[in-house]
């Protein structure tokens, strides 16, 4: 028995322009179940980030119906049902790492002692235990992004929205961060919606990959990734991994994306 975490029905988004309107998304139907790790994959301009922002109520859709955790997205945002990680870590310069992680807890008026305890717990979860009293600029890009993930998880949300979180990192750091994210996902069982334009990243991380095509942005196909869990370093060398890579590539090509 599974419950729906995110439901999108006929969702469309049109940006009003000075001369002409741009249709960013049209007729998106997608249901994401609890506990899934779903990647939104596609080339630039396919509206994958816009779709994520609609789920997070950072942008309203122009048509269609959205539910998050069984509620309208605005209600879900107000109830802090999700945590969000952006491409940039977006840490506050003036706060040390621990205080950055505690930010959403402060916003929710959680008492200081409890705040401190949960922030520390999250810091340990992302294995940055000894960096709590550092300022963000004293950390590497990968470490900063781990802090951002810890911050998003601090509220113990049932949903994690990630907008190309590793897009600004180098390839080596990227792969390490992917392993890290898998480990965290295994431990927290949070539902994840993950936007990326990297095919191997989507295949390695996801239980399902939603392939999107541009102009206007729409779902071109969905690929189930039935690779064994937990995903490990060796997963990338698994023959099934390459089969799945190809399957995703074929879907992209079928949609006219090269």
């Amino acid at each position, binding site marked *: 028995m599974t419950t729906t975490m995110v439901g999108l029905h006929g969702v469309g988004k049109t940006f009003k322009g000075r001369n002409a309107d741009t249709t960013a998304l049209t007729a998106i139907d997608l249901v994401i179940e609890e506990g899934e790790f779903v990647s939104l994959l596609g080339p630039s301009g396919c509206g994958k980030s816009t779709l994520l922002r609609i789920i997070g109520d950072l942008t309203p859709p122009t048509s269609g119906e959205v539910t998050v955790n069984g509620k309208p997205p605005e209600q879900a*945002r107000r109830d802090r049902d999700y*945590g969000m990680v952006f491409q*940039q870590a977006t840490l*506050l*310069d003036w706060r040390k790492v621990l205080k950055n992680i505690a930010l*959403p807890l402060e916003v929710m008026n959680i008492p200081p002692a409890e705040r401190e305890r949960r922030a520390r717990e999250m810091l340990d979860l992302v294995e940055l235990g000894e960096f709590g009293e550092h300022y963000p600029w004293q950390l590497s890009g990968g470490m900063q992004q781990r802090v951002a993930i810890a911050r998003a998880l601090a*509220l113990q949300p049932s949903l994690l929205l990630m907008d190309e979180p590793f897009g600004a990192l180098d390839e080596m750091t990227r792969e390490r961060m992917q392993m890290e994210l898998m480990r965290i996902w295994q431990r927290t069982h949070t539902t994840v919606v993950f936007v990326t334009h990297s095919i191997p990243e989507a295949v390695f991380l996801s239980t399902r990959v939603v392939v999107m095509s541009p102009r206007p942005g729409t779902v071109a196909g969905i690929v189930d990734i039935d690779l064994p869990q937990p995903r490990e370093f060796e997963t990338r060398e698994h023959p099934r991994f390459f089969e799945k890579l190809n399957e995703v590539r074929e879907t992209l090509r079928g949609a006219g994306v090269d």
Partner: protein
Amino acid sequence: MIRLRKWGPPTLVFLAVLAAWEAWVRVAGIQGFLLPPPSEVITTLRQEWDVVWAAGFFTLREALGGLIGGTVLGVLAAFAASRWVVIREGVMPFYVAMGAAPIVALAPITNQWFGITNPVSKMTVVAVMVFFPVMINMTRGLGDVGADKLELLRSMAAPEGATLRKVRMPNALPYLFSALKVAVVLSLIGAIVAEYFGGSRDALGVYISQQAGLTRMAEAWSGIVVATVLGAAMQLLIVLAERLLIPWHPSLRG
């Protein structure tokens, strides 16, 4: 080593200027009432110490009063301006105009309002001088937050007040400090020059202009020395406060 490289050249130049000044005055036989040698200024400063320091502190009080008043009003106005776009945009022409207008010219008016010897008349002039740079910088600081940070707070469903306290205000601190560094110097010079339009006999500006009028140049210059030292001390305090309050800022990262 780094300190030596940083402070070495200016210190040498300073000493060289003092030495050249002293030598030039002595060799060329320049009369003391035109340009006294540094040694004479120092001697005079020691003789006149009580009078000059008292005058310095009188004027310092005016400068500080105006600085604090102008800063508080500027910060409050910045909050209003960051809340209402009409104020933010409408105030820009005034800012440009006040930047161009000689605000010290207000001194004769405030002298009439509060009395020529009343420190409040100079404080008012200084406050007007300080108000605009503080307000404009603070408004920028509250506004230039970056869409990404605002979006983050929105994703946390943070109320407007929390965004103000946790993001906008800390973000504005460095902007406020850079305004204050300018304002501190402005406030002391402003108070002295406002006193050139007339003021209490205990005030530094009045002392300097009177001594210069009597061609007692060593006395006048010792007044300038006191003004410079007080100005430098005020600036030093601001720099220290900055180190204490915004150690995270890129310009201060060690």
